[in-house]
């Protein structure tokens, strides 16, 4: 299980990479592994939209399940990964790279304190694998 140490995580299996005042959001390796082959990704908001922590920002479908992706912290959308809907399989092959979903300008950076660090997220994932 790949859990990069420089990211923050949620208990709903999203990651966020914070760089300056911006954050990039995606789905974790654990999530893609549990969902199995991803066949469909829909990114819901468009650039410029203001979203709150917990808002649905994407829907992913695998051959066996459908899942919503929630925004880890509040922010204004500055970019969406337009190429992802055409290449949903990269969620399986490169969850922390090419499969980024959206980039936001953080509007409540304090909410980052609600998130898990890599060690806590690893522990959370292992607790579910028992």
């Amino acid at each position, binding site marked *: 299980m790949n859990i990069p140490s420089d990211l923050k995580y949620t208990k709903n299996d999203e990651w966020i990479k914070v760089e300056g005042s911006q954050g990039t959001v995606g789905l974790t390796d654990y999530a893609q592994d549990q969902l199995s082959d991803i*066949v*469909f990704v*829909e990114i*819901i908001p468009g650039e410029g939209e203001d979203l709150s922590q917990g808002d649905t920002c994407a*829907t992913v*479908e*695998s*051959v*066996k*399940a*459908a899942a*919503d992706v929630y925004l880890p912290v509040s922010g204004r959308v500055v970019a969406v990964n337009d190429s992802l809907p055409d290449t949903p399989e990269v969620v399986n092959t490169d969850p922390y790279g090419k499969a980024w979903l959206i980039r936001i300008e953080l509007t409540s950076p304090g909410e980052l304190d609600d998130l898990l660090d890599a060690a806590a997220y690893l522990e959370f994932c292992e607790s579910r694998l028992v």
Partner: protein
Amino acid sequence: MYFPHTEADREAMLRTIGVQRITDLFQSVPAAQRFPKLDLPPAMTEMEILAELQDLAWANSTARDLVSFLGAGAYNHYIPAAVDAILRRGEFFTAYTPYQPEISQGTLQAIFEYQSLIAGLTGMDVCNASHYDGATAVAEAVNMAYHHFRGKKPRVVLSPALHPQYREVARTYTASSPIILTGDNGEADPLEEPEALIPLVDGQTGLVVVGYPDFFGRMYDYSALAEAVHQAGGLLAISVNPMALGLFKAPGEFGADIVTGEGQPLGIPLSYGGPYLGLFATRQEYVRKMAGRLVGETVDNRGQRAYVLTLTAREQHIRREKATSNICTNQGLMALAAVVYLSLLGKNGLRQVSELNYHKAHYAAESIAALPGYELMSHETFFNEFVVQCPQPVAEINAHLLEHGILGGYDLGQDYAGMENEMLLAVTEMNSREDIETLVDVLAEVSND
């Protein structure tokens, strides 16, 4: 005797949910309605009950006993004997998609062919299999559009010339949702051209629904409406009589985003309360928002053609409360009837039936229009149904027609204020020239009374 639960099972279940007695579960039902005394006659033998049911059945007059000119959403068409023969085969005779669908390749193939034929007929990319009837298919289109725009375009404009029962069912479906149904409460004149709906379309409008033909039998080119709806960012749904599509342009060519319809004319007999068939087709880009079953064609591990249920991740059993619809059930057997019917007729056969309907209806309309006291109100292009202004209340005329073994048309005054004495008449390939002439003679008699 089979006991599904022992007394101990029941007690354990009641304890788990924290209820004393089973009757406690019915507290929300008003006491008087909880255990009403049913005034039932004493039990009868099978022989007696069969005789009683037979008596009741004989009290009905069917479209076989009468000459029918009644349509208004359900039509008396000829059904080739092969439709029923195939339907009743044991391998096919189930109302639903089987629970282990891929083992029933024949059923899946039939559904796939049904989808392909309906998609072709409507000019759409994908078609599900299926909904209950034309009314629920419209309600599902409303649902789909609402979820497609994620609640941001909650207004739906229903043409007042859309079937009144379809509009009513859409209201029932959406009663407890934020969807706002408008357009048919006096906002637009039902007899106006479809362009009259354009001023009702705004940025909040997710869907506009029209009939093709509309409830009055009229066939419109909806291109201008489609363009206006798309410009405002909404979708257009067209509810069709599939029989008309044998002759008229497919709604896909007008820019429809969703095509729904009542599939009954395609090999399904007239019956009170159904089962009928809800057609639902849409464009590829909306496939994941569509409810219902979807069969796809693929190859198995030996390279042989095979059929599977596909895109099931959009369905309710996987998406749960996030699904756009809680409909998973379908009208499998009725969809089979439609695919057998369409396959037997073929493209040219369907066109022939459609043409017969068109020409016979126009012959009847012209003949009635020539009668003193009657006026043809259908001035636009119509298919197999038209509106006639009568010299007397429709109910009285229909009573008179029934004495001559004729089932008259639909009384439009029931649904539309200002259309008292206006009758909606349907003519199909089942009505011979003699039938039509008899109708005209009896109508003439009425106006002489």
